[in-house]
Every structure is written in structure tokens, then in C-alpha cells.
């Protein structure tokens, strides 16, 4: 796709906006529609767009395959870790009330963290799957 000037210019304009939108969907999920799943998919689609236009090899040098493998596992571990942190703090598994002194702010922290974990796992798995399929 190296000779498609329009595609390259438009992609360069769009990719930062897609990434910002993914972060907005991730951290605004408490207030509007959205959350970890959607944000992860949108984040992955930005990098897949990059690898479609500029080549898979370039995309792999941006985010290496090993990083994706670690991030995909770390997201799930973060989710389970929040549950275990609640367990250690004296509550039930995934009971966010005990994460802070105030139950409501504890819920906020818990939801933010587990949504982050969901987003990391989803984004990493989607990119990993695409990289495997699009191998040269």
C-alpha cells in the first residue's frame, strides 16, 4: 500500500483520533455508553489500520508480539487481582466496597481497574489474532 498517498495521509490523521477515542470510551464508560470491551476493540482497530497501511512488520516494531502476550495475560491478572485485593481487605471476592474507606469510592476504584484490565486483554488479544492471521 506504499503508493496510496490518500490512504496514508488519511490514516495518519485518523489513527491518533481513534486512539484518543478509545481512551475516552475506556475511561468514560462510567458516564456514557462504553467500557473496556469496546475501548479495547477500538484501540486494536487503530493499530490494525496502521498495520494495513504501513505494513505488519512496522506495526510489530511499534508493539512487539511478546509485549502483546504479556499485556493480554496482565489484563486478566489485574481483574482477578482486584478481586483478591478485596478478599484480603476483608470483603468477598470482587466486592469493591472494601477497597476504599468509603464504599462508593471503593466501587469507583474497583470498576475503573477491572475495566482497565478488560480493555488491556481485549486489545492485546485482538491485535495478537490479527498479527497471527496477517503473517507474511
Amino acid at each position, binding site marked *: 500500500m506504499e503508493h496510496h498517498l490518500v490512504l496514508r495521509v488519511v490514516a495518519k490523521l485518523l489513527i491518533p483520533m481513534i486512539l484518543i477515542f478509545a481512551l475516552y470510551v475506556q475511561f468514560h464508560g*462510567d458516564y*456514557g*455508553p462504553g467500557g473496556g470491551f469496546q475501548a479495547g476493540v477500538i484501540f486494536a482497530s487503530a493499530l490494525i489500520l496502521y498495520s494495513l497501511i504501513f505494513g505488519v512488520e512496522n506495526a510489530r516494531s511499534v508493539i512487539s508480539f511478546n509485549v502483546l502476550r504479556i499485556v493480554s495475560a496482565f489484563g486478566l491478572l489485574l481483574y482477578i487481582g482486584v478481586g483478591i485485593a478485596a478478599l484480603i481487605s476483608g470483603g468477598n471476592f470482587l466486592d469493591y466496597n472494601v477497597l476504599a474507606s468509603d464504599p*462508593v469510592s471503593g*466501587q469507583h476504584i474497583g470498576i475503573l481497574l477491572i475495566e482497565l484490565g478488560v480493555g488491556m486483554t481485549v486489545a492485546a488479544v485482538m491485535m495478537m489474532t*490479527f498479527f497471527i492471521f496477517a503473517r507474511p
Partner: protein
Amino acid sequence: MVDIVLLTFLVILGITIIRLGSLFASVMLTGIFSLVAAGLYVSMDAVDVAFTEAAVGGGIATLLFLSTIALTTSQEKSKEKVSMPALIVVLLTGTFLMFGISDIPKFGDSSAPAHQYLSDRYVYKSPNEIGVPNMVTSVLASYRGYDTMGEVTVIFTAGIAVLMLLGRGRRGRAGRNGSIANSDQSSSVSQREKGTV
């Protein structure tokens, strides 16, 4: 009215996808199918579901189908013969599913089991208990935290499965190439030895 138009579109798209021989066109139509389905969910006020459908069904799934086509072929193998047992099984299952639909409560039915006490519980208590304006998030992430954890595990497992099934093939091939190169080397070495002999 909007629902009827969108549902008609979905049926037309579904039949077209089955009948088309070109897999590339079918993949594009599945993307459009997801977008129309997302529109249907928006008209039912399920914005979060519509968002997911548009992002996953219209975006990522279409892309994965396309890369699969790039790995395989873009034309369907023509198959004229219809298998009778398969047709009977499909028709029977379809009949049973249609029969089961009659037991599902109507859309927006206030006497549905889900609206008896559960919805009220969430609607009245979650602003004080969770304090998150988007109630879908509070149900998804807090009340149903176990379910969401299971979903993330499913996605993670699917990623690992793809990695094991397709990722190893490449490494195996590289290894085989390496071994071929090694055997070439050894054979050239043996030739050289023969030459010296």
C-alpha cells in the same frame, strides 16, 4: 416502524449472504449486517450493546474474515448437492426455536420475570450503592463482576488457542526450513568430502 424496516433489511442481507458465491462480497455484507443490527439495538435503547456490535461485528470480525480470505481463497467451492439429513435437522431445529419464541416475554412487557423485582432493585439502589451514572456499567462491572471475569477469560483463552493453532505453524515451518538448510549444508559437506576423497 423503524424496527420493521431494519429487520426486513437483516432478513434480506442474511439470504443474500447465503446465496452469494463470492466470499469477499459475503464478508462485506456481514459487516453491513452488523451495522444494521447495531441500528436495531439503538432503536431498542440498548446503546452499549449497539456500540459493541458495531465495533466487534462491523470492525474486528470483518477484518479477521478478510485476513482469513487472504490466507485461503475468495471463491466458494460450488456444491450443488443438498444433504437431506442435514436439511431435516435444520428444519426441525428451526421449528423448535420458533416454538420456543412464543414463551419469551414481549419486548417492553412489564410483567416479564426480569422486571418483577430485579430491574427495580438495580434502578433504585445502584445510584446509592455504586454511584455510577451509567447503570449498564454498574451491573456489568460490579453486580455481575463474576460474569465479566468469565467473559474476559473466554477472550484470553480464545487468543491463546489461536496462538497455539496458528502461531506455532509458522515457527514449525521456520524450524523445518532450518533443518532443510542444515541437511543441505551437511550434504554439501559430504559432497566436498567426496570430492577430496
